[in-house]
């Protein structure tokens, strides 16, 4: 009987201890797995969000998009950018506050994203606005909009419906004119947060909604390069030194240094804590088990079992507990991650499409490596006990005891 078979029998012999160990490792392993998913989840999810739609450079007035500062003379800037040889297209995004009247009840407060594309590249026309059409079609005319699912549900709108919107593009103190716009589609807006309502359309539609009073600034210019985002971002910075041009990777890098650091730190601390708990749990269980079997182990040694063999038995027992618990921890961890993700996404300002816990194969490997290390470290002390066991003295004590 090899060490694994022997360890398996030892576990089966004491089912309560084995179940306790396996469940403990499963719980701790699930937490560990979640911390690993959390450590890179926001980064991966944000990168995915930014990459959606094919826009790989963001031009804004501040270091990070969404600061509230606007790019001056955005259409002229987009024209200049689109003429760069490495640019396929540039998309100007200008957002405004809007109120959508409803037949009954209070008006819906929403944001209206007006977009305009500039391109001199043959494939530039293929690029779309940064939202995904769920039903109907994209807005194209100056009196057409798409709305999100929440607005569609709350106002009972479908493609073909009409809405009355009052938008303000320059200042909150404006008297808002009422404009009738046609809903041509229902869309998903990637950066929309849980509590937000969003509509989208062309920049001309935004002008219509704002009574022509839209100004020349934009919140953001999205750019798609022909394949070299870093070089293109550099060219844009050379062309327009007053703005910031960052590739998606750079934007994620900046977020990593600011807001996302918090989650990485939390995950690092909790990873350390959970691994420590796992080590302690397994060490205690194995030590108790070994101490209960000292006589048997001494007898085996007297019968000729080598020191290495009895040490291997303990290690195999640790490996079995951690291995079975580790496998169980994966579905448990995914379940827990989905619950925690829902809770964390309830925080204000978090885009609906952003996830805190994202599965990556790398997390699985790190999880397996950490649990392997746990099994080894946890077994060190009990292995030392059996390795240093004085055979004769133990046999003598067992008889006296």
């Amino acid at each position, binding site marked *: 009987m090899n060490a694994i078979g022997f360890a398996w029998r030892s576990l089966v012999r004491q089912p309560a201890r084995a179940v306790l160990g396996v469940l403990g490792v499963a719980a701790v392993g699930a937490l560990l797995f979640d911390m690993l998913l959390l450590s890179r989840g926001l980064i991966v999810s944000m990168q995915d969000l930014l990459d959606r739609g094919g826009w790989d450079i963001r031009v804004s007035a501040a270091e990070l998009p969404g600061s509230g500062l606007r790019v001056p003379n955005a259409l002229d800037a987009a024209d200049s950018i689109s003429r760069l040889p490495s640019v396929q297209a540039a998309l100007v995004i200008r957002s405004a506050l809007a109120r959508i009247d409803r037949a009954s009840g209070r008006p819906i407060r929403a944001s209206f994203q007006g977009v305009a594309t500039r391109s001199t590249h043959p494939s530039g026309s293929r690029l779309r606005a940064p939202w995904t059409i769920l039903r109907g079609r994209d807005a194209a005319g100056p009196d057409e909009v798409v709305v999100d699912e929440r607005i569609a549900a709350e106002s009972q709108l479908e493609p073909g419906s009409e809405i009355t919107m009052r938008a303000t593009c320059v200042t909150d103190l404006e008297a808002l004119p009422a404009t009738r716009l046609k809903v041509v589609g229902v869309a998903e807006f990637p950066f929309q947060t849980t509590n937000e309502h969003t509509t989208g359309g062309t920049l001309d539609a935004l002008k219509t909604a704002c009574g022509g009073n839209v100004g020349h600034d934009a919140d953001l210019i999205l750019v798609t390069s022909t394949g070299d985002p870093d070089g293109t971002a550099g060219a844009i910075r050379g062309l327009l030194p007053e703005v910031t041009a960052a590739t998606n990777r750079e934007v994620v890098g900046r977020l990593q240094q600011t807001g996302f650091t918090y989650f990485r730190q939390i995950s690092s601390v909790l990873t350390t804590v959970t691994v420590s708990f796992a080590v302690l749990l397994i060490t205690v269980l194995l030590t108790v088990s070994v101490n209960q079997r000292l006589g*048997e182990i001494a*007898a085996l040694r007297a019968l000729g079992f080598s020191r290495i063999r009895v040490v291997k038995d303990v290690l195999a027992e640790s490996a079995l507990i951690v291995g079975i618990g580790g496998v169980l921890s994966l579905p448990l961890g995914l379940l827990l991650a989905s619950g925690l993700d829902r809770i964390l996404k309830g925080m204000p300002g978090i885009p609906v499409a952003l996830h805190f816990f994202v599965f990556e194969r790398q997390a699985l490997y790190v999880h397996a490596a950490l649990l392997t290390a746990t099994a080894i470290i946890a077994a060190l002390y009990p292995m030392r006990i059996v390795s240093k066991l004085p055979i004769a003295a133990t046999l003598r004590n067992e008889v006296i005891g």
Partner: protein
Amino acid sequence: MIVDARGVSRVFSMPAGPVTAVREVTLQIRDGDHIAVRGPSGCGKSTLLHMLGCVETQTSGTLLFDGQDVSRLSDARRSLLRLRHIGFVFQRFFLLPMLTARENVELPMSEAGLPRAARQQRVRELLEYVGLAARADHRPSQLSGGEMQRVAIARALANGPRLLLADEPTGELDETTGAQIAALLDRVNQSGTALVIVTHDPALANRASRVLTMRDGQIESEQVA
């Protein structure tokens, strides 16, 4: 000659000062010997047995097993020597409770690297030899004390040892069962295995061809039948 012990002593360091458990014992064990070691509790019988079985090393003197100086062997070599040449029977049996009788007997053979088919054949033979073929698939908790000791004897004989050491093998058994175990040990000895038994039981000791009486760590007398 299996064991040649010359002037071996074993001193234990204790908080109150060193305690000499075995004092300058000289003893030879040959193939087929049947030796009983008697004496009052604490006289050093078990310590001597452990030294003969290479689980305890002497603090002075020389102990040769099959011509090899045991004190010069590494722990791994001593383990191998015990595995191949020495069998142990303990007062408390020390069978592994999660294994069946068959598996307990098979364990030392498995450790010695015997092929599976050969192991199974030998297990059958040994369990038949000790009269427990019908209880092969029973766990120790399903066996009586006498049956457990029979399994322990079968396990001790698994790798065909030249020397079988038994420490109070009837100590946990009633008189009748003890007599059965004594008879079984006699059979083992008659088949050529040297047998050293540490016992308080005069009936068991009187079956031996040499009876050593120990006192204060020394062999006080030796009676040869």
